């Protein structure tokens, strides 16, 4: 992480200035100002967050093969616009405690997750983490540990951690996967103690453990951590996604848990789980490509 104490660093695309501005806007602006404001802010970031825009376009080229480059520019704008709404609404929920409506798809699996003595929630960069954590806290009153990739800006990371923990009303703990093996042992211990650990399993960042897989027919590298942990701790993996359906309307999509059987052939056991996860990821992302906020190129060229 960079300690962006310089004045300019605060204004970088992932700098803390924009997070503070969003918090200010939520407190100070009437709700009907948001639509047009977000259209313009999305334009702003569409041009200035060029690496994210290019990554979205590269990912879309695989998810929606045959689509033109011009069309994918518009789709990238739409993805960024959805992202703007998602983080805005998460801030509204965190700061104003305004009401949100949601529906649960796969309610039986969510109940199973709530009752599970130790489980891994495997999710993607989709929808709102904050809202998901808040829902879980409200519904089950169980502690959940969220593992995130480190933010490049230290102040942004601090803001994000505080936001998640505030949204989670004291039962959400955020860990950054920078401590290597130490964090893995910590998470294993938590799982064995019956806790729930949430990990994003759709992209690899930094030096984390990786596993080769195929997504939308293309080679990808995915984090192997969740699968190794599930195999060693013998806990189920619950694929869970939060999708935005409209103004302050969300769907929590929970799939049947992936259970990794320990046959003695570790690589094969993990590959089987990864294969199931990729199938679910494809099924979820394909119709909601505009809500997949994986702002790095996922697919190998």
């Amino acid at each position, binding site marked *: 992480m960079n300690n962006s104490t310089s004045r300019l660093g605060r204004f970088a695309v992932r700098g803390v200035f924009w997070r503070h501005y969003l918090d200010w806007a939520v*407190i100070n*602006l009437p*709700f*009907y*100002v948001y*639509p047009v404001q977000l259209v313009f802010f999305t334009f702003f970031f569409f041009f200035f967050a060029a690496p994210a825009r290019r990554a979205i376009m590269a990912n879309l080229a695989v998810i929606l093969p045959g689509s033109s480059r011009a069309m994918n520019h518009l789709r990238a704008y739409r993805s960024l616009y959805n992202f703007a709404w998602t983080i805005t609404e998460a801030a509204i929920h965190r700061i104003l405690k305004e009401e949100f*409506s949601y529906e649960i798809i796969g309610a039986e699996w969510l109940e199973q997750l709530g009752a599970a003595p130790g489980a891994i929630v495997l999710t993607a960069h989709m929808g709102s983490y904050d809202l998901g954590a808040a829902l879980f806290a409200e519904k089950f009153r169980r502690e959940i540990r969220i593992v995130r990739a480190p933010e490049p800006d230290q102040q942004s990371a601090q803001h994000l951690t505080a936001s998640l923990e505030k949204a989670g009303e004291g039962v959400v703990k955020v860990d950054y996967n920078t401590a290597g093996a130490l964090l893995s042992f910590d998470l294993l211990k938590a799982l064995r103690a019956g806790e729930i650990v949430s990990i994003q399993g759709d992209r690899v960042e930094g030096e984390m453990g990786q596993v080769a897989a195929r997504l939308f027919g293309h080679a990808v590298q995915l984090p192997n951590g969740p699968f190794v942990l599930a195999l060693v701790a013998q806990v189920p993996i619950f694929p869970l996604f939060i999708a935005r359906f409209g*103004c*302050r309307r969300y769907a929590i999509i929970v799939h049947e848990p992936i259970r990794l059987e320990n046959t003695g052939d570790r690589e094969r056991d993990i590959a089987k789980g990864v294969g199931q996860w990729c199938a679910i990821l494809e099924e979820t992302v394909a119709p909601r490509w505009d809500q997949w906020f994986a702002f790095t190129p996922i697919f190998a060229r």
Partner: protein
Amino acid sequence: MSTGEFPRFYFALPRLLARYRGGSSERAETNGGEAWIASIVTYLVNYLFFAQFIPTTLGLGPRMLSLALLVFLVWLFWLFALHVNSLVIKLLQACGLFRTIPIRRAQSILVAGTATAMSLQLLGGGGWSAEIAAIWLVAVAMNLVAAAILALRNGDRAHS
């Protein structure tokens, strides 16, 4: 969070209509359609107000370019105006005003007031800009009447 699907509104007029149709007149900030309409009309009034200052003596090309540039300049004006408004509200709160309503509601009054002043100016200019301004003014008037009716009917206060 709520799992309820009952349609509710922010502005007084749709809240009054909802009440007459057997729904709830309680204020809510959850209606996306309402937010979009208000957002676009507010922006449009601002845009038309500033567009009238582009000299008509300009050629077609420079005029179109100016109008396109104005789209973003109006956004920047909004950012500036919203910030100034928030400072004005803090000042008013220090003087004992607007203390019982959230800042964003006080901001709403200032935004609507500014757009209404712009509409009054646009009204004299004629053309379709004046039509848009008239629509805004009628909407504001109807909302004020609806707010008064709601307040008289059930003691609905501005901050409810």
